[in-house]
């Protein structure tokens, strides 16, 4: 049987007293501060872990990227050297002479057709030069 603080009305009967028994929470500043402090600590920890994880991921991802670029650079260098081989082959004196004589029907100049003129002293290179032949 609930116990109420009874009051009596005018007729003398017990009338339950409506007791407003709602607890009023006190605002505990200490606990509030402690709560936010722990939120901060956990945030920092979690943030730190996330940062570490992100860094690790970035490191690995960049590592993949570097490896890709390294292999690509090596492939380009290999291709460049193959082109050097091709260039050297194309510039072979035998090949050039063969093309010149058989396909282009060229002949080596005789001494009357190509004269070496002795240069007395070195001159600075002009923008245009006249070459005289006798």
């Amino acid at each position: 049987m609930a116990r109420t603080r009874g009051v009596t009305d005018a007729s003398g009967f017990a009338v339950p007293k409506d007791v407003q028994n709602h607890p009023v929470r006190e605002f505990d500043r200490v606990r509030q501060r402690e709560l936010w402090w722990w939120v901060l600590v956990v945030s920092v920890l979690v943030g730190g872990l996330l940062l570490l994880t992100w860094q690790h991921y970035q490191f690995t991802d960049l590592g993949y990227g570097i490896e890709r670029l390294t292999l690509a650079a090596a492939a380009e260098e290999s291709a460049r050297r193959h082109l050097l081989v091709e260039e050297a082959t194309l510039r072979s004196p035998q090949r050039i002479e063969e093309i010149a004589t058989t396909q282009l029907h060229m002949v080596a100049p005789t001494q009357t057709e190509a004269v070496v003129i002795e240069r007395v002293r070195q001159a600075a290179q002009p923008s245009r030069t006249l070459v005289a032949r006798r």
Partner: protein
Amino acid sequence: MADTSDRPWNATVRERVLLAAMLFATWGVAIEARLVYLQVYQHDVLQARAQNQVNRRTTLEPRRGDIVDRQGRTLALSVDAESICAVPSRIEDPAAVLEAVCWVLGDCTERERQEYLDRLRKNKKDFAYLRRKVTRSVAGLLVAQAIPAVYTQPEPRRYYPNRELAAHVLGYVNLDNKGASGIEQSYNSKVSGRPGSSFVEIDAKGNAFSRVERAPIPGDTLELTVDAYLQYVAERELQIGVTANRAAGGSVVIMDPRSGEILALANYPSFNPNAYGDYPEDQRRNRAVQEIYEPGSTFKVVTASAAIEERVFAPDDMVDASAGVWRSGSRTVREAKDHNYGVLSFTNVIVKSSNVGAIKVGLTLGAERLGRYVHRFGFGTRVVFGDLPGETPGMLADPSRWGVSTIASVSMGYEVGVTPVQMAAAVSAVANGGAYMQPRIVKARLHGTTRAEVTPVELRRAIAPDTASTLVTIMEQVVDHGTGTKAQVPGYTVAGKTGTAQMIVGGRYSETDYHASFIGFLPSRQPALAILVLVDAPHAGRHYGGDVAAPIFQTIAVAAMRHLRIAPTINPAAPVLVRAVADPVDAFVPASNTGRAPRVDVVTGPPTVPDVRGLAAREAVRRLATLGLVARVTGTGTVIDQDPAAGSPIAPGRACRLWLDRLIIWPPPAPPQ
């Protein structure tokens, strides 16, 4: 029976909870125990296994250095090729794999098929080579076929893009990329480079995500003294001459007498170093340094040098070569073609190549003096000093043991074995005024951006300048009206000497096989080149040096003079003064009034980029600016590279990039003309 309904329900619950808890605890302990076992007791083993799976440590092979000629043209370089490998332990049907591989290769011989099959059948092995260093197209086709347990792996491969050109000089490398002949062998340690290493972490799919490496150090690039075009001309003309004279073979050596640089060294027959295994060993041998021959009358240059230097004979002194025969005991020496020159001047002994005259000169000199000059001219010793492996010092008996017969033989070039390079070096000493220069093949070594040039070395003074000058005059007459007239080069003074020597066949001097040779230099008063031509055993009806070797010398010399832009020394063209003008139609100023109106050719067209490598940045920028080019400079120091390359046509206003670096050793090249 007890009444279970009397048992309190919470006791039952408690029991069941306890049982469940014990089961969970057991499970937990078991897991913990397993974890402890794996992470504590098995820690090292498992960590090692993990590292094995993740980590790869490999050796990085260095790139073998290039070999270029004196103009920078590539003669040998290495590129990545692919080698076909297999994992025999994973092959179930070796015959099927063999068929697939041979289909890709397209040229498997029966021997190769059997070899590959034997390797594929070794099912305990995890690795086997099938064919090494195939082309990229073949490797690509193989990968596309996806043959199980067969893969390709990169390997460096040496290429000689000019094929037979300078083959004996360059040599070749074996399958393991080690020099086995020529420059490749003698400079193997410099050209090989130093390997590096790499530490790679790979993921589960085999992709690398982390790499730490010590880069390999590429090998030095060798810059040879050889000129690729002169080399080609020498090989071409030698082949034509040997073929036309139906000879067994021959050699040509072209040297710069002032520096000892060998501009060309040709042997015929030659070989292709890209496929050296297809040629017999004697064809791969460098006859110019590894084989000796008796030089015959070309050796009279040495005899004459000794006689003039020792003041035993002067050019106009008379030598009695009457009867045209010399006898000593049972030995008889006759003049060539049974000539009888009678009494002739010392000069004519050389000009006419009198054997009797040379013997008389040699006997007057005596063994000690003649032997001294033979040594001074480098005979009997190795002369290239390690640039070319397998060089023979030649054959020379101790002069203190020379009898009369030996002195006579040596005087005219017998009983002495020389190499073509020795002979060329000896005559170069005469050409340059008497200094014996060390012959060499390597001009410079390039290590990174550092260029270390090999300086010319004068080993000794062979003869005095006066003696050399006198000898040059005599040798000019040999070519002018003596035995070497077929070596004349129009427009140039040539000095030379012919030689014809019987070959030793079966231990005896042959009556049909001869060494025909010619040694000469031009222009004789300011020699740019000394050229030796040797033809072995010509059989086309002629065997004298003047008929066989001298014409080959002439064709080589004509092409060489044109290539080197050496002006004629006989009736040279007068110098012409030219003036640079903006409008090419305007007249120019001739230096002399010859009465003839010169024809003017105007050189037009887009200007070309000058070669500014080796110049300081300021000078390089100035030169580019005068041509309307904008220079963009990277780095500090001297220009080591440029883009566009020298000689490229450009449009004014275009940028030219220059890379600069501070070099330790760089003799700057001559400024561009």
